[in-house]
């Protein structure tokens, strides 16, 4: 009986100390050396600030098209980067619903600036679009060119 009680006591003390030690170890491993000085400049916050500036120039609801490098025929792009940018743009722009494609009255264009001056005119011509507003050298509000 005494042996059983001692085993139980040992198990209890071990669990208590081991659990506390693990909590400390997890904290040290995960955030022990974390640098919080750059707060607010994480990927989502940065993209969010960049994209949401467009909201005043867009409709107050509805569906808006989205074109990016992955829509340019023959153009090399990183699929993951393109997907993340699309999702982050969706996150920044509610109450607008972003859908890929050019068949919408208003389209957001997100094209990387490679220094190629012919890139944007070629895209506009290919999709038969015109620029409504150039927000940055990479982000545009576009619409169908009916002329």
């Amino acid at each position, binding site marked *: 009986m005494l042996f059983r009680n001692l085993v139980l006591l040992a198990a209890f003390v071990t669990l*208590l100390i081991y659990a506390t030690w693990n909590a400390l170890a997890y*904290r040290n491993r995960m955030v022990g050396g974390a640098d919080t000085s750059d707060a607010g400049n994480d990927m989502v916050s940065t993209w969010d600030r960049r994209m949401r500036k467009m909201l005043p120039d867009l409709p107050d*609801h509805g569906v808006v098209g989205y074109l990016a490098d992955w829509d340019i025929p023959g153009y090399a792009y990183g699929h993951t980067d393109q997907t993340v940018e699309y999702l982050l743009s969706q996150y920044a722009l509610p109450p607008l619903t972003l859908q890929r494609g050019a068949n919408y009255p208003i389209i957001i264009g997100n094209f990387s600036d490679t220094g190629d001056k012919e890139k944007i005119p070629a895209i506009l011509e290919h999709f038969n679009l015109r620029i409504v507003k150039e927000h940055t050298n990479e982000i545009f509000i576009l619409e169908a060119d009916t002329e």
Partner: protein
Amino acid sequence: MMVQLLLSFLLPWLIGLSLVILCFRESFLEHFILKVFLGLGLGVGITSSLYFFFSLVFDPSRSSYFLVEGLVLVSILILTICDQSTRKHSKIFPARLSTQQIILMVFMAVCFIISLWTAADVFSKYTIIEPHGRYDAWAIWNYRARFIYRGGVHWLDAISPLQFHPDYPLLTPLSISRAWLFMNDEVQKAVILLAGLFTFGSIGLISAAIGKIKSLSHGMLAGLLLAGTGMYIYNGAILFADVPQSFFVLSAVVMAYIAITESTGKPGLAILAGLSAGYAGWVKNEGLMFFAVAAVVTLAVYLISIKNKNKPFVWNYLAGMALPLLTVLYFKAILSPQNDLINPGNLSTIFEKIIESQRYEVLAREGLSYLLAFGGWSAPVIIILVVFAVIAYSSPLPQKKVGVRAVILMVLFQAAGYIIIYLITPFDLTLHIRQSILRLIIHIYPAFLFVLFLLMKTPEQILSPLFPALFLEKEESG
């Protein structure tokens, strides 16, 4: 801004707390900490329903909504104050403690506080580094909250078929949007505060519940283990909805146990049990299954096992479920399309999947590897806890056995439900398991801890053979 932020969640908390105090039908100071944490979650749940129906009738951008909350609070407060005026405020502090008891308490409290501090540090640093959370947070939950807050009369675009998983329940997006409406600004800290309330609310709830049912030091050990499970805290800090889901599962399990074992003369406990189970179905789709499991198990166990039945129990339980059930039914039946996970094709396809032995092999292999990896400890936390529970097993008192049986069944059936969903998933099984199993474990982990702690000897019981002065009258297990 910080005060305004805290005030934004004060109304829900006061509504929940008043209702819990009213339903417990005892002096409000008794088990006050348990009531505080129960009230927090239930208040958020209730206000999400109120805001949902208000938004359907008007639109979610009208601050006149807070008049509705105010009216609800005043109504419940009046009932609570009337009820409290008839209650005798009994002595709530324990009898004088022995030196050994004080030493045990201090030791447990020190370990608990260290564990809580590490959890708070992990949570705060993660939310500073990534204030919008990880993928699910910004791609689903906060994204939807923005639609509701910014959308005005077009807020239902948040769940249009064009959206990703438009059928996901709305408790967290509505609660976030509601806080923004209160602050009249889209403050990201409101999202973080909501996540923090549920993360630390779960720790508080399990500590207080075990503290009430077994002993304070046992409650601190349970809380220490939950706070010390790094993966749980991390999941809360990345602003996913899995920790809020786990809070409501825990809350439903705790209240089912208390209602079954203590409902005589306290009909309100069954209402709280039904309410908690109901809101488990309004956080994530997985919670819908728990909603059904909790209701069926609680009512079946009560009706089959309790000899001196308290007749209104079933009606009270169903009455508690009414508001969340109405919310979920309206959302699921009228507003949102079918769940993609439970639409795998015809019955013969499902049957073929169920009898395919290879799927069981994949499930066992992948499931076991993730189960062992869960927790963030240097050794598998679940195995350690089960081994300790076996060593420290204590048979529940006869009058508590029915309650214990009910909560064990709830956790087991929920786990079995997850296994069945995996078996019939229309997606690649391995990938589906890898993408979701840790989050599913998180849903039931606090409830699993609660069940284990009901079955374990308390620290006082472990130490009492060596230090007889530690033996407390409150002990429930034989």
